[in-house]
């Protein structure tokens, strides 16, 4: 099983969720995060004060998926979250050794 961790622009959440739904992935967990990356460095002006924008609100989406649909899932996210502009975000893939559903105690694939 793999954990997909995607950092995306907040307003793309619905699109990404729908895209994942379409390929049968319904479970996921989302966190509000602050992103630091290339998308910054420009100076903004607010009420007369200049400042450098250093972080931006992003969403972190985590979905555990079985290895065989991993590529499909990554593809779906990449497309749905894409605006073509800087700051669209990243996807990180890591390995999960075990998954347990708390309610039933099921493990592995069943637990997703």
């Amino acid at each position, binding site marked *: 099983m793999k954990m997909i961790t995607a950092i995306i622009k907040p307003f793309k959440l619905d699109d990404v969720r729908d895209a994942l739904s379409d390929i049968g992935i319904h479970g996921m967990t989302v966190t509000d995060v602050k992103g630091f990356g290339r998308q910054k460095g420009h100076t903004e002006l607010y*009420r007369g004060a200049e400042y450098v924008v250093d972080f931006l609100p992003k969403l972190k989406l985590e979905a555990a998926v079985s290895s065989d649909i991993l590529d499909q899932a990554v593809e779906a996210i990449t497309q749905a979250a894409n605006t073509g502009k800087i700051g669209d975000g990243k996807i990180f893939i890591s390995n999960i050794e075990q998954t347990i559903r708390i309610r039933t105690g099921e493990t592995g694939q069943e637990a997703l």
Partner: protein
Amino acid sequence: MTATALVLMMTLPGLALFYGGLVRSKNILSILMQCFAIAGIASILWVFVGYSIAFDEGNPYFGGFGKAFFNGISESTLAGDIPESLFAMFQMTFAIITPALIIGGFAERTKFSAVVLFSSLWLILVYAPITHWVWGGGWLQQMGLLDFAGGTVVHITAGVAALVAAIVIGPRKSFGKSSTTPHNLTMTVTGTGMLWVGWFGFNGGSALAANGDASMAMLVTHISAATGAITWMSYEWIKFGKPTALGTVTGMVAGLGTITPASGFVGPAGALVIGFIAGIVCFNAVTIIKQKWKIDDSLDVFPVHGVGGIIGTLMAGIFASTELGIFSGQGFAEGISSISEQLKIQTIGVIATFVYTAIVTYLLLKIVGMITGLRVDKDEETQGLDIIDHEERGYDM
């Protein structure tokens, strides 16, 4: 009476929220706390000596101590047509809001102990004497200075003091670098709503009666606020493409501050002009001070209140004239007959207030700095004044 309640509401919670929303969440309680502490201390000092310094007869520069401890005020003494206890208390609410305005100049970095000490001394040595000059029978009043509800007494003193304090204390660590955007604009907007409402008491109440004068003062106050807000909003819209909420409410406050000294003397059309000028001039003042001069008057006290107070005091000298057609007002001070004459007096009032406030504020800051120190250290500034000074957090959701 209602006016008194309204003016208190301007500070608590109005100003407290207006300012509070503008700081970062780690400093929100420091702002609220300073407003409350000042409200408490200023009230007590006003009873002790402040009222007496301002309104006892004394000499043209200083009222004296004959009314210290509200000596001689009972439920039946009068000040003009109203009970003196009411007059003393109405004035007390002004004595609360003025030092509270100043804290915007040095927000997010100054020690609480320094704020308390500075505000106390400043009230006694700057605010009370100038009040005496302008409203307590002092030299500016005798000269014929028009200041209906505190353009010099409240706004110029507060604005100048904030500017001096911002310079002496120095900018916030992150000024001009990372973002210091408001943590809660809804709070700020709520606060300005209350300021708008409360200002009716401020300016309307300064007529010291519930009559046609008071309602005209309210009307022009309202018009200037509305015009200031819309002017600032439109200016931003044209210049940057998007009108902001903060800009709109700042314009409103600028309109209110600027009409203050003029509110009892001008008519509706004059108020439109004053509000418009307030919006344009204060907008540019904000930009110049922060961007050009690099002074971190954090919540823009000087460009909004100080500059507003100055242009309002001057314009009162113009639009009070009864000879401007639709822009006419209600006449000059007794014995004055031309705009230029009145304007000269207004200018003297502005300069005297500016210079006296600047010098004494500077000295007081140096003294307070020696006693308590002025700033928290860098790491404390990063952690925020709420934890450092008060061991509390504003939000724990």
